[in-house]
């Protein structure tokens, strides 16, 4: 199979793409029997060669969000430079039944640009904080992308035909002299090279004083919410000059501020219900039917603190960095610095499951506070059937927890380990004592290589993992 090194699209972007064929081999889990093997589908390195409006810097290629759409056909990534890159899954052809669909670049566009707030004399970052897809309702795709202050609705559509045979224009587009026209014809649509264009359809601006950390599309598909550190606003897709404030935790006196909103999400089925998490490790579920301003929660989820683990860093590590509803809508998953917790909506006083992501860091909290790693915001995701949860860690490791079998695995997303025919080998961190051959010791972990953003295909076992400016797509082969 020949893969071109460069792919040119109608919008003249050039990318380097690496693709790997899929082997079928066994993978060894930490405990037998193996039930799933993860193999590399492809890696994509953001490496923009085309001239850009802004000076290119390696840092602007850092991927800041990853999201599959509702069918899994498209995968969107946003980066620190304000760009959005959309990948589309190749259709499986009948000739190559064994070849799974791979993801190729479908479209790329500049979603947000750096701005300067003249009133406050502050720069507004163009980094894309979140991307959320709208369910597809026609041939075009719609997504929301947001930076710190502004949410934009983008329409991504294809054009593969163009009209030819105009009367007033010639083939090159020059106007014809009407006096020379003697006959009339009807323009016809002729096929052309596929062109994917992205147009901003709505811009929702000037509604947030603080930094937007979450957006969530409601199940009614008519509204969505955007959450910043202290407020949550409800928008209608059609109306850009108004939004409703539904949560406001800003104290009258900012000197009394001790808690901020860290993430928010709508319930997947009940359009009146949403949750938001806080920096104190609490989750509040609110019902918009109760009142216009949902300052009083309907449910309050908090786990009592373990007094034996108390330290100066207890609050910081309890701060929730991500909250996600399960696809069923029955559970919520939260990610704090060291653990992932699954909560049943019907039980508020403690989570039903707690998974240790990297507990070996508990004794290193002081150093992690010193180098600011303790403030890293990791995300977490459910698989399509809500049976497996995944989250990232350091050293380009990411972890998966099977809720049914209670097994977990640590995998690594790195170029060295993602060669063709590569199967991901489970990794293990050695806590103390003798280090075995394949293990890595805690002190050797690279804390600059962190996996903050991951995504899971809605129905298949395909995952996307963002490691700095690299995007990895892995797929499993069930034996």
């Amino acid at each position, binding site marked *: 199979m020949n893969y071109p090194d460069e792919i040119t699209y109608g919008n003249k972007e050039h990318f380097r793409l690496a693709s790997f064929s899929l082997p079928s081999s066994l993978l060894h889990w930490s405990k037998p029997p193996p039930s799933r093997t993860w193999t590399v589908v492809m890696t994509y390195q953001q490496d923009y060669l085309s001239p850009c409006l802004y000076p290119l810097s390696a*840092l602007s290629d850092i991927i*800041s969000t990853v999201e599959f759409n509702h069918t899994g056909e498209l995968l969107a990534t946003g980066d620190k430079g304000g760009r959005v890159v959309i990948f589309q899954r190749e259709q499986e052809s009948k000739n190559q039944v064994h070849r799974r669909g791979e993801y190729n670049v479908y479209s790329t566009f500049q979603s947000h640009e750096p701005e300067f707030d003249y009133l406050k004399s*502050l720069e*507004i970052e163009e980094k894309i904080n979140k991307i959320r897809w709208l369910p597809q309702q026609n041939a075009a795709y719609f997504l929301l992308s947001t930076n710190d202050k502004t949410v934009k609705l983008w329409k991504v559509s294809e054009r593969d035909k163009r009209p030819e045979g105009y009367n007033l224009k010639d083939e090159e587009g020059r106007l014809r002299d009407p006096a020379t026209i003697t006959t009339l014809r009807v323009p016809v649509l002729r096929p052309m090279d596929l062109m994917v264009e992205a147009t901003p359809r709505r811009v929702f601006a000037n509604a947030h004083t603080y930094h937007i950390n979450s957006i969530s599309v409601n199940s009614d598909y008519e509204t969505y919410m955007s959450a910043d550190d202290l407020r949550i606003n409800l928008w209608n897709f059609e109306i850009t000059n108004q939004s409703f404030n539904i949560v406001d935790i800003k104290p009258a006196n900012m*000197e009394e501020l001790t808690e901020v909103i860290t993430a928010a999400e709508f319930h997947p089925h009940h359009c009146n219900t949403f949750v938001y998490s806080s*920096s104190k490790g609490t989750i509040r579920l609110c019902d918009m039917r109760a009142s216009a301003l949902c300052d009083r929660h309907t449910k309050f989820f908090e786990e009592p603190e373990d007094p034996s683990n108390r330290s100066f*860093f207890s609050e910081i590590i309890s701060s929730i960095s991500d909250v996600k509803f399960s696809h069923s809508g029955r559970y919520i998953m939260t990610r704090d610095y060291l653990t992932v917790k699954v909560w049943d909506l019907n039980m508020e006083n403690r989570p039903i499951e707690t998974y240790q992501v990297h507990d070996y860091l508990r*004794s290193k909290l*002081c150093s992690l506070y010193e180098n600011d790693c303790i403030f890293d915001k990791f995300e977490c995701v459910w698989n399509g059937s809500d049976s497996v949860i995944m989250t990232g860690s350091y050293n380009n490791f990411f972890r998966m927890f099977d809720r049914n079998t209670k097994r977990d695995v640590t995998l690594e997303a790195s170029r060295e380990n993602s060669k063709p025919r590569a199967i991901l080998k489970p990794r293990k961190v050695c806590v103390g004592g003798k280090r075995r051959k394949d293990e890595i010791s805690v002190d050797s972990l690279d*804390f600059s290589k962190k996996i903050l953003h991951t995504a899971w295909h809605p129905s298949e076992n395909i995952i996307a993992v963002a490691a700095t400016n690299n995007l990895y797509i892995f797929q499993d082969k069930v034996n």
Partner: protein
Amino acid sequence: MPHLGLLHPEPLPLRQPTADPSNTVLSQSLRGLWVLVHTSRRGGRLHGDPLWVLRGPALRPRPSGSPSLGGGAGGAGGADAGGQGTMFARGLKRKCSEEEAPADPLQRQSLLDMSLVKLQLCHMLAEPNLCRSVLIANTVRQIQEEMTQDGSWCLPGPQTAGRLPRDRLVSTEILCRSARAGPPQAPDPADLASALQAVPAIQVPGAVPAGPWGRAGPGESRGGFPRSLDQVFETLESHSPGTVEELFSDVDGPYYDLDAVLTGMVGGAKSGPEGLETFASAAAPPPGTGCKADLGELDHVVEILVET
């Protein structure tokens, strides 16, 4: 231009640990505070009277061999990129032990210093990360509460009590009065005092707000430090000569500027709800140039202070 999320192209140059660790601490905290003041349009509230802070750490005796403030400066502000190569910030001395929480007071003090530096540094960013600031401030508060319970903050010795020229103290008084007159919430000196273990020698009542968005009212915590306040007033009256006066005698110029800036800033800005925003809209030097000029001035001041 893409925002790099880094505080500076490189970490702030820290003074190398000298034989006397207290100088390092002083310059570290001092540096942070000075910069904050001069970029106050983004900095919001200050951690109390900088003069006060200067006195504090410099005067608190440190046992020899104590770890110097490696500081979070190198890592502060770094988000996805930045100096987080290995677990320990590059080139900076690791000062936290491997244990989970600094149990002994010295480590707790180091943690406190580091937290304050982080708080101050993060205000120099284009726009401070509110979540991070809140978390660090809560940590500071927690340490301070524990220190209060332990009673482990130091009391000033006679020679170390605030021997500042009276006019400087007066100026901060004026400052604080104007701060109190406007906004409903006056800043909390006691907070800062213990926070810096600043030998609450100079607990001027109603000092400039501590914390990025201001702190609790004075009434709440001030009651906890009556002794030190009394001592402050005593020393104010006594006027006996001391080393501190000599320490600060050479730096009249920048201090007066500082006072002017503070007074003008507090007078012009209304505190309260929109702490950060109002400070931003208050008169402020232009970004970039003012900062650099002030850093140069800061270097000069630090040199003088530490050599004395």
